[in-house]
């Protein structure tokens, strides 16, 4: 897997590069600002771009803007945002910016190495990896203004969908909710039919379900 990273804090950037190298993931280029990210994304066409939200020169939402622009130039680019805070607006903007895997993780999740690497692999493969706090915020938003689509879900199905949005596997969802994997599968197939998703392969439907959930929240 070929990864690029845009992070202005050298300590963290180099740490992530070392950590990924140990796991056999190659960081082919690094950038310190939004402009640099666009250059390396266009130049290297990576499988995934890891992007910090706050980058020079403005140190505001430079990273999000650059990531959205990067997706415009390289359609389908998978993006994993690292941030020190949860901001659903930014997740929504990324999702609205086109196809490709999307992740939004709080920076401290990097410390959970297996979880972080797992998220990278999922997003690079076109899936999602949203921080559980992002999902919690989105669920809170979701609970009230119903546009009908997600209203039909039971509270349990909501929980399952939220965990799917985080990017958990069926087995992990079953462990979290303390139910059997079979029950999880049943919930998921209910969600698919309630959201009226086409019967393609399960992975793709999973992504579509999560996107429906996120787009409705954004």
């Amino acid at each position, binding site marked *: 897997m070929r990864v690029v990273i845009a992070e202005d*804090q050298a*300590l*963290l950037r180099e*740490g*992530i590069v*070392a*950590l990924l190298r*140990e796991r056999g993931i190659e960081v082919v280029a690094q950038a310190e600002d939004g402009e640099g990210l666009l250059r390396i994304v266009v130049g290297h066409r990576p499988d995934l771009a890891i992007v910090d939200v*706050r980058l020079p020169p403005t*140190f*505001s*939402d430079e990273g999000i803007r650059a990531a959205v622009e990067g997706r415009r130039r390289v359609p389908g680019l998978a993006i994993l945002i690292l941030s*020190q*805070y949860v*901001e*659903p*607006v930014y997740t929504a903007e990324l999702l609205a910016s086109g196809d490709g895997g999307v992740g939004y993780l*709080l*920076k*401290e999740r*990097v*410390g*959970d*190495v*297996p979880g*972080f690497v797992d998220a990278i692999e999922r997003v690079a493969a076109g899936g999602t990896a949203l921080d559980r706090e992002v999902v919690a*915020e989105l669920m*809170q*938003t979701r*609970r*009230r*203004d119903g546009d009908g689509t997600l209203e039909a879900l039971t509270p349990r199905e909501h929980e399952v969908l939220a965990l799917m949005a985080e990017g958990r596997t069926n087995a992990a969802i079953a462990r979290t909710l303390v139910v059997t994997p079979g029950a999880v599968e049943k919930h998921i197939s209910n969600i698919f039919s309630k959201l009226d998703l086409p019967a393609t392969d399960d992975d793709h439907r999973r992504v579509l379900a999560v996107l429906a959930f996120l787009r409705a929240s954004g």
Partner: protein
Amino acid sequence: MQMTAAVDEGAPKGPSRAIEWSPALALHAGLSALLGLVVIVIWAATGAGYFWPAWVWLGVGLPVAIHAVAQASRRVRAGRRRGLFVHAGVTAALAVFLVAIWALSTSGYFWPIWPLAVLAVALGADALVVGLWERLSPRAREQALTERVDVLTRTRRGALDVQAAELRRIERDLHDGAQARLVALSMQLGRAEERLADQPDAAELVRRAREEAGAAIAELRDLARGIAPPVLADRGLVAAVEALGRRAPMPVRVDARIDHRLPPVVETAAYFVVAESLTNVAKHGGGAGALVSLSIHGDRLGIEVSDDGPGRANTEGGGLTGLRNRVEALDGKLEVASPAGGGTTIQAELPCGS
């Protein structure tokens, strides 16, 4: 940056030098000095008899002195005090002039005593009138108070701007400093934990240390969010209010007509007005929807949060008092109307000096 401009505006103005050297005054004094030198040369060339150049010096010196007084009087604010200042300056110049004439001429009977006495009495009378007028005239007192209020308003606003800038700087420092280091620490601990796979006890200790680091990061994040939510600093008031609306547990419509960034202190105050108002709607609005409007009229930002709930809100509640204090500190107004059955409307107005 907006900050700097606002701070500069709040800084006290006024010169600090003793003499205001305008170009005109400098030219006047320079030409006079030159003339003084020329007449000495002429005097010396014509036989150096009676020292008549002293009279020329006196003649050109008086206008320069009066010019300097007039120039200096600009530092005194316009009004009777400035008149008194010019009066005193001209009197002093005339006194020197008269004594010099006496000294240069006969030096006998000290005749300047009479004109000097008249000048002194006139000056004394003027000072008395100005003093009494300032003490007794309500208009003068009013003007003095108005000026004082202007200065206080400016300096208070300056202090609030500085405070807002400081808070954002602290937030930035937390982000780039302590938080970044804790993130790096958490990552190193994570890598250490990976390598301790064959020593479960040690790995468990490292995992706990990583969790502690994570908790510290979360606490710093909450602290930073309390100062101002990141989206407010990044995207401005409208985006932050829209985010608030989306996050509220009831439907919220946002009607914002602002196309530029406002000073941070105004943005933060307006943000908290909307946040607290929406919290109130959520608590007491009985599930009613809310409408938030933001608009600029001249140099004032208008904020209105209304709901179609049951009304009869407590218009003096703790949250509202805090908001009112925040708004009034910026010379704004906050009003709450909550008739029974008529919904609740919170209106605030903030000067946004942009």
